[in-house]
């Protein structure tokens, strides 16, 4: 009998993952601002404090450096910790602890000390929040050996990847997208995990591979639907985790279609899109029928005014236009 599916929102899928894992593992402690009785700025911990109490849901003041260091220290001593930075932008206050301490400890200690900490936050330009609440800094973490970087796009992946992240023994940077919190999707009733490092092909196609993570998966899927009307068959791949990156599955798609466009909400310089383009050049060079494309946010700080902000982030229209141009050559 096929398993029952039910609808759930992206944010509630995260809450469900936390509830299941906190029941399963009594050493999990959750640290962050407003994550206790308030249930999280984005309702991302709603109801958990009522079940697990303020001992395990540790509300903090606004002090990401200390809170993150405390979470890492707790993880080093035998707990499993989640620290919620709320906005990815705020994790920069704690970057020295994440990069210089958490990411190094296992290696420098010769595998003797582990830091099983999930650094959770939300990214992305939403409702004109401006440059201090909108950025997509995942590339900075992805370039640090010792960290895994997870960027779920769907409720199914939020739940499965968050549960897997909470069973990793190394630090995981878990980044949700603010614009996706209210989106809905189907998940099974029973328990499931999504392993880190497995890309998912969301749409099969013949002519070009569109790679997008997080909210850019939705842009890629909408663009693919529009391109189909022009007779262009696009395959859409979501790597789901930047580190580890599922190079074989991405390469297989590029070899099949012969073309690549990466859609990335971060600016292009030294970023995720460039990494996937490098993968195409290194592993699929002979299969390429055209130059790989990077369709990224413009290299500007996130602007406030709506007509400016809408220019910055890759849009369906921009993706369709650039892919058409590529296909004409």
């Amino acid at each position, binding site marked *: 009998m096929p398993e029952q599916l039910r609808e759930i929102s992206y944010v509630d899928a995260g809450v469900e993952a936390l509830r299941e894992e906190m029941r399963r593992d009594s050493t999990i402690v959750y640290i962050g601002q407003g994550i206790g009785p308030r249930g999280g700025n984005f309702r991302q911990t709603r109801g958990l404090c009522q079940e697990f109490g303020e001992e395990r849901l540790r509300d903090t003041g606004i002090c990401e450096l200390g809170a993150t260091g*405390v979470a*890492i220290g707790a*993880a*080093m001593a035998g*707990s499993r910790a989640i620290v919620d930075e709320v906005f990815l932008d705020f994790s920069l206050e704690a970057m020295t602890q994440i990069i210089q301490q958490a990411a190094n400890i296992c290696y420098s200690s010769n595998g003797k000390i582990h830091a099983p900490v999930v650094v959770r936050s939300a990214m992305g330009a939403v409702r004109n929040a401006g440059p201090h609440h909108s950025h997509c800094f995942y590339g900075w973490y992805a370039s640090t050996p010792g960290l895994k970087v997870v960027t779920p796009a769907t409720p199914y992946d939020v739940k499965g990847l968050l549960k897997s992240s909470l069973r990793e023994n*190394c630090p995981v940077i878990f980044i949700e997208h603010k614009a996706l919190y209210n989106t809905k999707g189907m998940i099974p009733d029973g328990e499931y995990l999504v392993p880190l490092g497995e890309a998912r092909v969301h749409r099969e196609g013949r002519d070009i591979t569109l790679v997008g993570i997080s909210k850019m998966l939705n842009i890629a899927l909408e663009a693919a639907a529009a391109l189909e009307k022009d007779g262009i068959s696009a395959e859409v791949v979501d790597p789901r985790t930047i580190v580890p990156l599922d190079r074989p599955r991405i390469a297989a798609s590029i070899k099949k279609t012969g073309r690549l466009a990466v859609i990335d909400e971060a600016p292009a310089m030294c970023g995720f899109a460039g990494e996937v383009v490098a993968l195409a050049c290194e592993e699929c060079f002979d299969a390429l029928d055209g130059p790989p494309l990077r369709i990224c946010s413009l290299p500007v700080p996130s602007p406030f005014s709506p007509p400016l902000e809408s220019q910055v982030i890759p849009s369906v229209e921009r993706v369709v236009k650039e892919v058409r141009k590529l296909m004409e050559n």
Partner: protein
Amino acid sequence: MEKGTTEPIDRNLLLTLYREMLQLREFELKVQELYRRGLLPGFVHLYVGEEAVAVGVCSNLQPTDLIYSTHRGHGHALAKGVPGREVLAELWGKTTSSSGGRGGSMHMYAPEYGFMGTNGIVGAGIPLATGSALSAQLRKTGQVVVTFFGDGAVNSGSFHEGLNFGAVWNLPVVYVCENNLYATEMAFRRATKNTSVQSRAAAYKIPGVEVDGSDVLAVHAAARAAIDQARSGGGPTLIEAKTYRFVGHHEGDPGTAYRTREEVEEWKSRCPIRTFREKLLKNEGATLESVEQIEREVQQWIEAAVQFARESPEPAPSTVCDHVYS
């Protein structure tokens, strides 16, 4: 606030404190020699002159208690019980230490001895130790966590945020500031207006204690009170141990450009090891024979450590990518 007070203490412990301080001193002088001969890679920051702090504090700890150290951390590792030969092997980049040569002086870990690491980032151990104390509290392990840091750390955000967490959550952690008056070359009095570190404890509503960091018994007593308080659920204490490094900031810095010769000599005249030796012989009834025997044994100990570390194998290049992800 109250000063650390001394109390009657048994003879065996006194001799142990002397032995350990001497081990720390002789170890660092040997490291200095080996480094100057070009045998040790990297950079080393020596603990010469500050031995009474690490020994006075750690002599109160259980093997399962945890400590977090600093860039000047060889002494802390030894005082917590990490074997000298393993510490030296790590400084040599050899495989026979707990960290297998992957960390070196400033990134050395030996969790099997409760040694949670030296640290190349000033102040970084303060939030980490606070978090480990949270874990101990939540898991009810009965452990106490001690973090050492210098005066250079106390103007950082890590100090403020870490102590604030330790205080508000009443965690079993002891904050030990080794105030040696200089952060690299920067005099503490030039870096801050309030030069009393212990007075900052009031900002977090925890006890602050100032203690003579050259007096191992005073440090021992102050640390014992703080550790007992932490273990019994009474929360953290900030201890300020006034101390001094007899050497430069790192090996290679003569340490004289920013400190007067008179100041250095004045502190050396209160050498924690020599003054304690005199006290043992004069006031505590220790025999010259027992003290000299310790001194001979420490020499043998350091020579054996050198031989062990020198003869230990280097890591195989093929292992370079091991342990990046656990």
